[in-house]
Structure formats: structure tokens, C-alpha cells
């Protein structure tokens, strides 16, 4: 039984935070209809551009990672007819997900009030950098901006140079955690809407999520003047006796946590009283890890991206391999007896426009031809 079967999602989600929230709902059984247009594509189609041959916008790996299990519809919101059709679709949807710049949805007449007017049960998940309100509501951010402004970077860095560190463009950590929470909030809102008949506007601030991820540090800093200007402490951690990475003979790093004096004694026993740095420097990373683990210590070889795609037991269900060798995102959890299945690869721009408008709105060939002639359903990128 898919937990969200029968739930339909209108997906304006872009890049990771938005598009992946809808993807998680799709994995749980929701019917997700992704709306783009030739006038405005998910930027992941461009960010991940690999070539310049026609159809390049359908080949971005990043786009494929975050949009599998969805159908793709092209509807131009700049066109009155496009906006009218969105409201028609919204009547039959349970959820709308969006992470446009603030103000875009209002400009198109598709804000919560407009959606609610056609469907009181609708749940609008509005995901933005700073939230829908407040003096900074229009401020732009990338994930790594929020490492800084959310408070995590101040707690990240080497002890010697004291420079705060961000997760960087190949991680953008704050972007990645948004959908893990937002999809759960949407499900809670849908359950509530079913019970009460009333939907909800979920105003989700990515910066607040970034700060929530270090919530205990806010509590501590608010109560303890000594924590107002936190020093960077490398990999060390309060309450942990010793924690750092050691370089081994093969050049690889091993991460080791010694929780307390007992762990430190165990480590001394394993290394025959040598310090861990010298001991690791004299052996390979896998051997060092195996010996430390066998003694009951938490140690692991630091993996890189190549390891993640090679070690399939380690990746579990988080990566999904397609029959053609392609790789897309899997799920962060598993349900007993339900293997992860990628039922659809990510849609080409506008791939399911006609079949979706036929099925959901009952449009006939004439109506579809008219929309195409007006350019409402054009799936050719207007500019790069």
C-alpha cells in the first residue's frame, strides 16, 4: 500500500528544495504533475547542461536525480490561458509545491487566496529563502549562503585558522535537508485537510530550517554568555574525549571518535600505546578501521563520491540505478517489503502535457491544438 496513493500534487518546485519535496511525495505514491514551460524551465535543466545538441535540456543529471517518478506538463504562466488551466488543475489537486522568488505566485494570480478560492482543501507548500514575511523576505540565497546566515558556518572550521566554513557549492547542505522536513509537513497538512475540509498555507523558510539544524546551539548561546562567540574547534566536539581524522599510508583518511576515557584506553591497547596519528600513518585506511572497529571503537574510512556509487551495500536505497545504467535519487528510508522502484524517469520538458490535460481536464484534440497554436503548451526553451 502506497501511503499517498490518491493524492495529487501540482509541482512548481525548482532545483532541490522544491522539486525534491514533490519527488519525495511521488515516491510515497502521490501523482505529481510538474509544471514548467518553454518560457521558464526548472533551472536544474540548465545548471546540469552536458551538451548543446537539441534536447539538451532533457539530459541534465541533476534534473534527472530530483524529478523521477513525476509527469511533466508545459503550461506557460505568462499566458492567461495557462493560468486559467492551472486553477482548473488545482481544483483536483491536494497539494501545490512552489519555491519561486517571493511575489511570483501573486503576480500570476496563483497565490494561496486564489488557490483556496477554487479548492478550500488545498495545501500550498511555499518554500523560500527567508519565508513569506519579514524585512528580508525578498533576499536571495543559495544553500551555502544559509550555512552562513543560519549559524552553522560559525560552528564549522579548523581550530588553527579560525575561519568559518560553508558546505560549498557541491553540497549546499541547507538546500538538501529542506525536503526531508517539508514533505512530512505536507503530509501532516493533507491528513488535517482530509479531517477538517480545510487546507493550509505552509510558509517554510529555508534559513529557519538551517538554524533549526543547530537548535541546541541557539538554546545554549541564549543561556550561556560564554557561548556567544563560539570558537571553531575542528572535528572536536563538546563531551567527546577525542575526535578527528587520521591520514593513513594509502593517503586516505580515517575518522575516529573516542567518546571517553574507556575508548581512549581501548585505543591505546589497539595501538600498543602509540598515538593514533602515528599508528594510522603506518597502515592502510581499511586495515586501521577494521582493527579499531574490532575493538569496539567508532572508526570509518572517509568516503568520497566515487565510493558512494561503488559501494552499493552502503548506499542502500538512497541511490537508484536505472536499467540503462543511469543513476537517480533513491529514498532516505525504506518500507518493509516495498523495494524502491523508479516507475518513471524524469520527464522531458512537456512530455506528458497532452495526456495529462486530457485525463485531468477532459480536453479534446481541438482544445489541445488551440493551446499549442497559442504557444501556451510550448516545450521549446525560449532562451538559454
Amino acid at each position, binding site marked *: 500500500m502506497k501511503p499517498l496513493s490518491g493524492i495529487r500534487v501540482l509541482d512548481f518546485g525548482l532545483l532541490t528544495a522544491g522539486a525534491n519535496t514533490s519527488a519525495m511525495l511521488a515516491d510515497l505514491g502521490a501523482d505529481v504533475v510538474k509544471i514548467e514551460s518553454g518560457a521558464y524551465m526548472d533551472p536544474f535543466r540548465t545548471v546540469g547542461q552536458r551538451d548543446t545538441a537539441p534536447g539538451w535540456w532533457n539530459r541534465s543529471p541533476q534534473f534527472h536525480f530530483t524529478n523521477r517518478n513525476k509527469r511533466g506538463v508545459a503550461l506557460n504562466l505568462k499566458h492567461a490561458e495557462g493560468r486559467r488551466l492551472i486553477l482548473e488543475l488545482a481544483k483536483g489537486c491536494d497539494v501545490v509545491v512552489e519555491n519561486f522568488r517571493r511575489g511570483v505566485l501573486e503576480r500570476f494570480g496563483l497565490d494561496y487566496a486564489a488557490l483556496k478560492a477554487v479548492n478550500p482543501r488545498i495545501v500550498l507548500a511555499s518554500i523560500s529563502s527567508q519565508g513569506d514575511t519579514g524585512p528580508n523576505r525578498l533576499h536571495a540565497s543559495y544553500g551555502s549562503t544559509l550555512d552562513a546566515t543560519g549559524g552553522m558556518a560559525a560552528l564549522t572550521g579548523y581550530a588553527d585558522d579560525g575561519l568559518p566554513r560553508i558546505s560549498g557549492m557541491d553540497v549546499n547542505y541547507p538546500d538538501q535537508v529542506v525536503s526531508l522536513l517539508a514533505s512530512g509537513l505536507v503530509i501532516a497538512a493533507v491528513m488535517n485537510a482530509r479531517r477538517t475540509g480545510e487546507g493550509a498555507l505552509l510558509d517554510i523558510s529555508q534559513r529557519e530550517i538551517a538554524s533549526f*539544524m543547530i537548535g541546541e546551539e541557539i538554546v545554549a548561546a541564549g543561556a550561556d554568555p560564554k557561548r556567544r562567540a563560539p570558537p571553531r574547534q575542528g572535528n572536536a566536539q563538546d563531551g567527546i574525549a577525542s575526535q578527528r581524522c587520521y591520514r593513513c599510508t594509502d593517503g586516505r583518511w580515517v575518522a575516529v571518535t573516542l567518546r571517553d576515557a574507556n575508548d581512549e584506553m581501548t585505543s591505546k591497547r589497539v595501538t600498543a600505546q602509540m598515538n593514533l596519528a602515528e599508528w594510522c600513518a603506518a597502515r592502510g585506511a581499511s586495515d586501521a578501521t577494521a582493527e579499531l572497529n574490532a575493538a569496539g571503537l567508532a572508526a570509518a574510512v572517509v568516503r568520497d563520491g566515487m565510493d558512494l556509487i561503488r559501494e552499493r551495500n552502503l548506499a542502500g536505497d538512497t541511490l537508484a540505478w536505472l536499467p540503462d545504467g543511469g543513476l537517480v535519487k533513491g529514498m532516505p528510508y525504506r518500507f518493509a517489503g516495498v523495494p524502491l522502484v523508479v516507475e518513471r524517469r524524469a520527464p522531458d520538458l512537456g512530455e506528458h502535457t497532452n495526456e495529462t490535460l486530457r485525463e485531468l481536464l477532459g480536453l479534446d484534440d481541438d482544445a489541445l491544438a488551440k493551446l499549442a497554436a497559442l504557444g501556451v503548451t510550448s516545450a521549446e526553451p525560449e532562451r538559454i
Partner: protein
Amino acid sequence: MTRPLLGITILEIDGPHTPLCIRLATSLAAKIAADLGARVLKLEPPGGDMVRTTPPLLPADGRSALFQFLNTSKRSITLPTDRRAALDALLAGRIDAALYEEGDVVAAALLAERNVARVEIAGWPESMPQPHPPLSGFTVLALGGLLDMVGEAHREPLRLGGHQGSYPAGLAAFTALMAQLAAKNVPPARVSLVEALLWVNWKAAAGAHADGKAPTRDGTRSEFQVVPCADGHIALVYGVTQFDAVAALIADPRLNDPRFATRPERRRLITEIYDVLKPWCATRTRAEIYKAAQARGIPFGAIVTPFELISDPQMVDRGFIVDMDGLKMPRLPVLWNGTGFAPSPLIEEAGR
């Protein structure tokens, strides 16, 4: 605004031998449900949850700030040594769903017997051959490939601040819990810390798969760097098409050098570019730089401490940090029809 999970009862079953990194995930998932209005019974093992004594500790009374953050809006019951009987009695009442932890055979058996909707929080993926080595939040970051992504290329990989080895799994467990409640007979779910972290770090896998080479930490060789400014630090973050906008902001003719015209060349010459950016930042404050950049749509970010968040105008305007029994406590990061859900302190019930 009535809280959306009002009327739902959830058990958070803290196992007697659970590692700290797993407990942090379990408690975070249950906390979110509790702040959303669910009645969450936190069942602590005999002797109590070890997070009660885990730093950071509050100077006034030695309570754990971490415990306070992770256990808002719950009710806590400490189970006696005979956990089975106590747990069995609790499960005889109406329970909508339960969170429990790997290795808690008592809870696993009782929940299965009564077919309770449930989410198990574990360390390793189920697909990983046994025995599973011990884990810490730090080694989870190593296994998920996130350590490899942060820091300087030739230096020790760096962990992100806080408990990021645990919290992504906590969020995933919350969402899995909501999926359990969304329909009848949803199969039990399992979340592992390693899988959740690896899932978060998907760009490392995507990059490796697309290029045959793993993206990795490049610290002060990166296009995005943190640099000192007059009153702290600023993260220079901008879009790949925004270099001209950055050059216009800094207004130093050296940035108009034709050698900086293409992105691959800019990446190669990044040190020269930062040689221009750094002195400009050094004489200006975080607020000046942030404001000037935002005015041009450039997403630079000021480095802000957790303490500074408490008085941050945006955070204050949205009521993100609330007073809870004298503590500054972040609320859930969502406004629900314009309302924030203020967390309340844990209620300690007598043991059973």
C-alpha cells in the same frame, strides 16, 4: 490555529543501549510531531535518556540544552527495569504510531505483535552485511561522504557544526512517521543514519557518476569562500552567471581583466580574484557587504553566530525564537496559516 496532529498519540521508545547518534535522530523526529500537536509519550530507559547529561549544558542548573531542544512538547515516562511489562501495558491503550531504535528487541517484538504503525531508527543500511561496526555522528559523516566535501583539499576533512550525522535521519524519520499515519496498513519503515546522510550528499554521487571523478573539498581554491571583514566574516556565494555583477559591486578594474572572462579560467585563477575581493571586504562590515550584495541580487551571506540569531531582525519579525521557560528556543521552521507553533517544556510524568 489548531495544531494539525492534535488527537494523534505517538510513542518515542528510547532503547536501553542505543548509541547517542541514533537517539538524537529518534528524539528529533518525535519532537517535530509533538510541536505539531501530537501527544508524544517519550519512554526513557531505566536510568533515563543519556541526552539529559550531554553537552552543551546550561550554566544555571546543568541541564542539557541539547535535551531541552530535542524534547519539547513531549511527556516523559521513565520505564522500570522490566520494560516489557510496562511497554505492553502502554501499548494496550490507543497508540497511532511508534518510533523505536535498532537493537531494542523488546520494543521490536511488542510492536510487531500488536501490528503498530512504526518507524525504526538504525545506524547502518539494512543492506550492509553484519556485523555492523560501532558508529558515532562523526563516522556517519565520513561514511556518507560529507566529511570529504568540507575543508581544505590537503588538510583533514571537516565536520559541519552541530549533529548533522543524526539530524537528517531525524527529519527523514519524521516524514516516514507521517507516511505511517497517512493510510492504513503502511508497511513498517526503517531509517538509517548512514542512508539519510548519503541521500543528503547526493551531489557527490551524481558528480562522480557524471564525471567519473568525485567532487571534493577545495576550501580556499573554491569559487565560494569565507573571508574576513571589518566585524567578522562573510561568505562570498554567487551564481555562475553573476561574476559580472560581483565585479560591478566591487568596482575594482582588476576584475575586468579579460583573463577572468570564462568560468574555467576564473576557477583556475581564483586566488588572484580573491586577492582583489579580500581587501574590499576587510574594510567593510558584514551588514554593509550583505546589504550592498543583496541590492544587486548577489546572495553573499554574513557569518552569523547562534547568539546573533536571537536578535536577528528577520528571525525576530517571524517569531522564530521564542521564550520557553526562560530559554531561547527555536520553534518549528514553518508558519502554518501565518501561525508559528510555540514549543512547550517537557512534562515529566511519574515512572510506571
